[in-house]
């Protein structure tokens, strides 16, 4: 079983559209099947294409949250002084979204007014989709611990894949290079970097490529929105060559992606002859790079 993580550094480069298309190709071509994991728990969108039917829902509880009992609080100010996260207000209540659950306030409170309580951060789901099982999650609004929730999603997806003998776990990652991205990368066989021509996207590609290198995970790239700026595209290609980054394919800047999204379809389903064929090419490059077992011979 292999794990492919789709990342981009920059948001909006097309991670989810590419993931959905690869999911359709994988469901069609892999004898053992594919398990999907939406690790963009902050702003999950893969479900808008895969239309999951939830068969298991779990509350995600992680870490702690401080609360101050106003009846016991003497307003001495110790907690306010010691909290390094500005989570205690001047009138001694807790700003939940700033509390790291470290317990400093509880330790320094002389009157026992602070209680640390288990903290609900979100929910996670195991679902059925037309491509195969999918693990996904919804972080509560403004909640912490997205990295830990990503780890939970990844572990559940790995377990499902092992149980069902799936050949591939396909992970839709989040933008950036911080904790949710690092959590989604852990233990991956390879990372597919979706980029687009442009100074911002190239800047972000360099950062996420450095991150993949840092964790020694082999990387492939897809250049989306090709044709948008030929000069910037050449720059991206030169960078890929310089870094020995295999470009698995190019996708034209095509309204078909949005139209497929409007219909809740992947482009492999929506436009199999056009964009779908381009995606198939990328899929073939990915499978050979990953040395995926269980790929059916296609006509």
């Amino acid at each position, binding site marked *: 079983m292999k794990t492919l993580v789709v990342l981009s550094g920059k948001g909006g480069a097309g991670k989810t559209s590419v993931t959905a298309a690869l999911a359709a190709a994988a469901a069609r071509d892999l004898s053992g099947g594919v398990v999907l994991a939406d690790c963009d728990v*902050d702003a999950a969108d893969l479900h*808008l294409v895969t239309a999951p039917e939830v068969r298991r829902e779990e509350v995600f509880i992680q870490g702690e949250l401080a609360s101050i009992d106003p009846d016991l609080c003497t307003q001495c100010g110790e907690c306010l002084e010691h909290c*390094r996260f500005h989570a205690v207000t001047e009138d001694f209540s807790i700003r939940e979204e700033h509390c790291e659950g470290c*317990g400093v306030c509880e330790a320094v409170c002389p009157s026992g007014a602070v209680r640390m309580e288990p903290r609900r951060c979100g929910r996670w789901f195991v679902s059925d989709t037309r491509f195969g099982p999918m693990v996904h999650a919804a*972080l509560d609004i403004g909640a912490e611990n997205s990295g830990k929730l990503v780890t939970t999603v990844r572990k559940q997806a790995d377990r499902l894949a092992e149980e069902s003998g799936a050949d591939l776990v396909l992970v839709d990652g989040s933008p*950036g290079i*911080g904790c949710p991205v690092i959590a989604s990368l852990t233990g991956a066989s390879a990372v597919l970097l979706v980029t687009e021509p442009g100074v911002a996207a190239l800047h972000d590609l360099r950062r996420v490529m450095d991150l993949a290198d840092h964790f020694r995970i082999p990387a492939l790239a897809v250049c989306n929105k090709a044709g948008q700026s030929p000069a910037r595209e050449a720059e991206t290609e030169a960078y890929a060559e310089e870094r020995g980054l295999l470009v698995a394919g190019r996708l034209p*800047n095509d309204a078909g992606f949005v139209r497929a999204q*409007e219909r809740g379809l992947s482009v492999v389903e929506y436009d199999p002859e056009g964009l779908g064929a381009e995606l198939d090419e990328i899929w073939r490059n990915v499978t050979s790079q990953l040395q995926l077992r269980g790929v059916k011979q296609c006509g």
Partner: protein
Amino acid sequence: MDAPARGGVPADAEQAVDAARDAAAEPGAGKARPADAGDADRAAWDVAARSRVRTTDMRLALASGKGGVGKTCVAVNLARVLADRGLRPVLADCDVEEPNAHLFFGPAELNRARDHFVPVPEIDNEVCLGDACRACVNACRFKALLAMAGEIMPFPELCHGCGLCGIVCPVGAVGSSSRHIGHTAELESEGVRLVSGEMRIGEAMAPPLIREVKARALEAADEDGLLLYDCPPGGSCPAVTSLDGADFVLLVAEPTPFGVHDLGLAVDLLHHLELPGAVVCNRADMGDPERVRRFCRERGLPLLAELPATARAAEVCADGRLLAREIPDFSERFDDLASAVLHSMEGAA
């Protein structure tokens, strides 16, 4: 070593929030000025707005749930037109994982880099009671300390820098070391000051560096200047830290199914944080423009502007150039947007 991040910005926006909620309840709230107002009207309005806007602590955040919808593009162009009006904006690029705003200010280069650190514990083994005590190991919520072969070992990468280990140690064996989290730098270009932060590769936690970026932006701002926060995507800690202390939030949206879904998450976050906001729809003709309009009506949010998707605009943005400088139509639209935003902020103050 720099002091641990205590920067942040005090949340003093409660009154503003109440006022904005009242304002948002009125029909037509957030609408800048009559669409048919002439240039003279506009100039008069802008002068008046400048004198009325409480700019000393005016903080405008640009946010979105989804990445790639054009937050940075809107932020840099808005900063440009605000600077052209003499408002001396300071733009804080709070997306320290993938900072991009500086790319739009070429050839100006970021300079005066400052490194930033978070405090992590260092154990004095001469003093430490080791396995016999383990008070720090037991207290640490982040498993950043481990008892190994009789000694206590810190794992700096897991440390949140809360200081609890030092508080609970009965013998004062916990000293302070530091972990490098990244750096900040700034540039100035034709009246826009930009403060940018870049997180070290492999560092997982963005909020401490975001607080440094915001603190430095506040340092850079003139007393009657305007602060703009270009926020990272998503709705968890980096976005929350970036939005902290904002007076008003401009949500950048995109009329695709993904775009509107994630806009919904961003609006939920604003409600949660009790922040007033409005929407600008980018690439309005790319999906179904009605989708964003309908959303704004349903959620009671002013839609301040719609920006068209054109091949030329995409290329200018991809090249890291400013739409407000290069395409007259966009220059006008951003100018109108600036008026609308200032007006909305004034209403919220």
